[in-house]
């Protein structure tokens, strides 16, 4: 295999920066994700400040931090502007989805765990793997730079629906601004006609600014570029994961002996590689609409915006939604299947009992992935798509709840009759299960097309998203970090801090997101700058305020996690090879594992979940058959 040929790194730069070692790359993804996690969290708090105290948040804030006054644009007066608000929620979602959850699950855990858990020395394509991380940097650049360009970062939602995101002024009709600029720069005696004709470059530049949305100027173009690069990164990762899992497994590691974490990663990688090209194409089409003036998403007669118009079109705004959701629905599973796998492994480790129903668990993941490709239309029930398509998508969507339910029952059966050790890792995993039940159930409301007529684009959706992505995927990530931290850094995280963080996060996240169901049932539309102008929403303003307070506290308590994480890297107690006493292969290696991972190639004898085995010492059987005594491990690691 190719990984045999790649030498141990020589110097600091090749070891820690431009490394092709999957473990280093995984940790790089982990740290970049952490940076964006903080950024995304701050953006969310901005959103909640406005919604909790519409039009007053800034005044209040200035009382506390008077030094901010200088950095607030004069045009805002004493409030966050509506355009700025659209930027806040657009960038919050973009950052959290494409720069936190996807890179953490796929990039960080995928990279770190796949070779270790299947008994490989490294990924199949280590150089490609390195590239998959570094190609994220252009994406980081465009994402961060977009905050500083004219008009600010993108503001047409993370879904970026045309024509809001893409409509540009007809470049054939001279832009008054451009004309004035040309006049100003032209020498007084030169023929004015010649200099008035905008050059191609000027036309392209003028298209970068979409007057359709105050906040979709150049920021939207940067947004598109950022997503194209981050998608390329995921694509490289997926190809690598699929190849590695198919070709680099240790002897005896049959597919049906793979831990569920690996199954989650495997199915996710397949989803990614099939769905991502479609998103990339859509992004490029919108990019072309915005820059060179193609009309993929502009209807034939063009659009009229009061005092300005687009040119004539020939495209279809709905096309974007189909392409976007063809990727983004599978993407929601990309953001949860690896977490489901990790949670299964963490759960079994602390229940000391075999996983209940390994095969049904694997098949339900495959079913979710398969059905996941034919349900994208459930995001478009009210879009003006033919309602008969809505019927078909409803049936498929309702069916996809079934494998999710099967997974829940199997987790419950795993816990039933076990002996649970409550650790930070296992508590977060248990919370995943409990909260995924709520998120899955709210999905059923929206899958029913008539009910969705009412709750579509209300806070009910926002509640659903956050129950599956924050209260499920993020809790899965917390569980994973607590669980594999000893392997990554050779030390364990502090349990007291871990449990405190869990306790507060669990309470506050429910306080933040559960009342959103009520807001949605009341009919509160999402992406609203100021709901209080509506009579029928006045009654829920106290809930909005409660949500905002919980959200701000929720943001604050994440500092506990961050501090615990950073502190433990340097000062946590040394952990040894197998601190949790687990069967899977990664725990056979030193903590942290050296280059090439395994001292000797492991030979896999059995599945990963042989616990509660009365005859075996310690009640468990390692996948390799070597029975380790965890108390002795610390010495030779």
């Amino acid at each position, binding site marked *: 295999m190719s990984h045999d040929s790649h030498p141990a790194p020589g110097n600091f730069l090749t070891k820690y920066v431009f490394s092709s070692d999957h473990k280093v790359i995984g940790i790089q993804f982990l740290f970049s994700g952490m940076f964006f996690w903080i950024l995304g969290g701050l953006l969310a708090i901005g959103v909640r400040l406005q919604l909790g105290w519409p039009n007053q948040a800034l005044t209040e804030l200035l009382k506390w931090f008077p030094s901010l006054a200088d950095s607030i644009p004069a045009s805002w007066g004493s409030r966050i*502007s*509506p355009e700025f608000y*659209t930027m806040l929620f657009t960038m919050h979602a973009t950052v959290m989805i494409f720069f936190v959850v996807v890179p953490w699950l796929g990039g960080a855990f995928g990279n770190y765990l796949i070779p270790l858990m299947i008994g490989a020395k490294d990924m199949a394509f280590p150089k490609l793997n390195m590239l998959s991380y570094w190609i994220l940097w252009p994406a980081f650049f465009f994402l961060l730079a977009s905050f500083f360009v004219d008009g600010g970062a993108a503001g047409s939602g993370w879904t970026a*629906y045309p*024509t*809001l995101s893409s409509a540009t002024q007809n470049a054939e009709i001279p832009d008054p601004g451009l004309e004035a600029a040309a006049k100003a720069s032209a020498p007084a005696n030169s023929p004015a006609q010649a200099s008035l004709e905008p050059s191609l470059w000027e036309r392209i530049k003028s298209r970068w600014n979409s007057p*359709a*949305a105050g906040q979709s100027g150049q920021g939207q173009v940067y947004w598109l570029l950022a997503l194209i690069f981050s998608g390329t990164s995921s694509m490289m990762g997926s190809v690598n994961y699929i190849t590695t899992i198919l070709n680099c497994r240790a002897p005896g590691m049959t597919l049906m002996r793979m831990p569920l974490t690996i199954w989650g990663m495997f199915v996710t990688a397949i989803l990614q590689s099939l769905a991502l090209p479609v998103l990339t194409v859509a992004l490029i089409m919108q990019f072309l609409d915005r820059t060179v003036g193609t009309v993929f998403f502009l*209807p*034939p*007669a*063009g*659009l*009229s915006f009061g005092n300005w118009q687009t040119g004539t*079109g020939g495209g*279809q705004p709905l096309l974007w939604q189909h392409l976007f959701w063809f990727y983004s629905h599978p993407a929601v599973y990309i953001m949860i299947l690896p977490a489901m796998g990790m949670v299964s492994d963490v759960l079994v480790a602390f229940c000391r*009992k*075999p*996983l*209940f*129903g390994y095969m*049904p668990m694997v098949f339900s993941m495959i079913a979710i992935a398969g059905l996941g490709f034919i349900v994208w239309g459930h995001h478009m029930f*009210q*879009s*003006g798509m*033919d*309602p008969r398509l*809505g*019927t078909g998508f409803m049936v498929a969507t309702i069916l996809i*709840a*079934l494998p999710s*339910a*099967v997974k829940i029952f199997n987790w*419950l059966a795993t816990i*039933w*009759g076990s*002996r*649970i050790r409550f650790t930070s890792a296992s508590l977060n995993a*248990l919370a995943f299960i409990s909260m995924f*039940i709520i998120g899955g159930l709210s999905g*059923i409301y929206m899958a*029913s*097309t*008539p*009910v969705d007529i*009412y709750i579509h684009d209300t806070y009910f959706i926002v509640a659903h998203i956050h129950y599956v992505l924050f209260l499920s995927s993020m809790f899965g990530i917390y569980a994973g970090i607590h669980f594999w931290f000893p392997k990554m850094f050779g030390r364990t995280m502090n349990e007291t801090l871990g449990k405190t963080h869990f306790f507060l996060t*669990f309470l506050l996240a429910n306080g933040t997101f*559960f009342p959103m169901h*009520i807001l949605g*049932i*009341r*009919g509160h*539309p999402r992406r609203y*700058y100021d709901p209080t*102008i*509506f009579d*029928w929403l006045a*009654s*829920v303003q106290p809930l909005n305020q409660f949500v905002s307070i919980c959200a701000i506290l929720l943001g604050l308590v994440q500092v506990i996690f961050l501090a615990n994480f950073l502190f433990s890297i340097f000062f946590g107690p040394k952990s040894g090879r197998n601190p949790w006493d687990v069967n899977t292969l990664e725990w056979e290696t030193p903590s942290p594992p050296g280059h090439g991972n395994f001292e000797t190639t492991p030979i896999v004898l059995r599945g990963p*979940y042989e616990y509660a085995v009365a005859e075996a010492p310690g009640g468990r059987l390692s996948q390799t058959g070597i029975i380790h005594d965890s108390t002795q491990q610390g010495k030779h690691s």
Partner: protein
Amino acid sequence: MHRFWSLLFATVNLACLALLVVAFACPELGWWLPDSASTQAIEIDSLFYLITALCGFFFVATEGILIYSLWKFPSTAPGNPKPIHGHLGLEIGWTIAPLVGLLVITAASLPVWQAARYQGIPTSTLPGNSETSPDADQVILVTARQWDWHLKYATEPLSSEGIRQWAAEGTPSDLVVANELHVWKGAKVSLLLRTTDVIHSFFVPALRLKQDTLPGKTIPMRFEATVSNVRFDPAEGRVVPTDTKGSWEIACAELCGGNHFRMRGKLFVHPDRKSYDAWLDHSKRQTRSRSLTAMVPQAASSIQKDGFTQ
């Protein structure tokens, strides 16, 4: 200590449930579904409760088992776990049970969806369905733009073919009003939704009606109001509230720019056609001199003729 975690899970789940129950049981809080004032609203609400009943059962059962397990099976409990790897019967059982519930939801949803949305599809492509455009008592063309709604009321009876013609060209006697939807109780209202610029979404909570407007398309929508909230008072020359129902609002539900939240309109359901006609006559007299029709941009109208066909 381990009991603590079981109790935490119990508390959080019960608190969530309690919030739902309180919101449902105390309508005066205004935390539940708003007034429901159309045939569609009644059906959608019943579906909502059906799903809530089934999901509520599933929720209580699964969270209950989880919380009980945390209480009952901590690592300190005596004895050892059994090495059980699965059970075929159980797997079959818990696949079929939710499947039945899900199929019930699907079956209950289908007719409501059809009633709400299947009109306007050309009959030739839809076997056994009603005609393209069943007789409507009222036809209203809703044109969305950044950031308001323009409603054009047809004042003469229209045939189903005539509707398309009218949507594109209009007739001189039409009335155009900004942000006010006037109908009468029991009228079969046919809406035609379109936009001149970006996607918006016409959302009337009291009618449980929501439909995106799509650039380049005219989308038909129907409803029938079942409760009235105003009547026209000729003496005062304006509509006055009839009972405690108060005002019903119209909102935009699809992000359409910075002022998305400002696309606020009002729904007025008159008790009968007489009141509506009085309002219509009055408004026409009021606006004749002002030639309000000029306010509706006609730019995109030429492409709207083909109605729903994609």
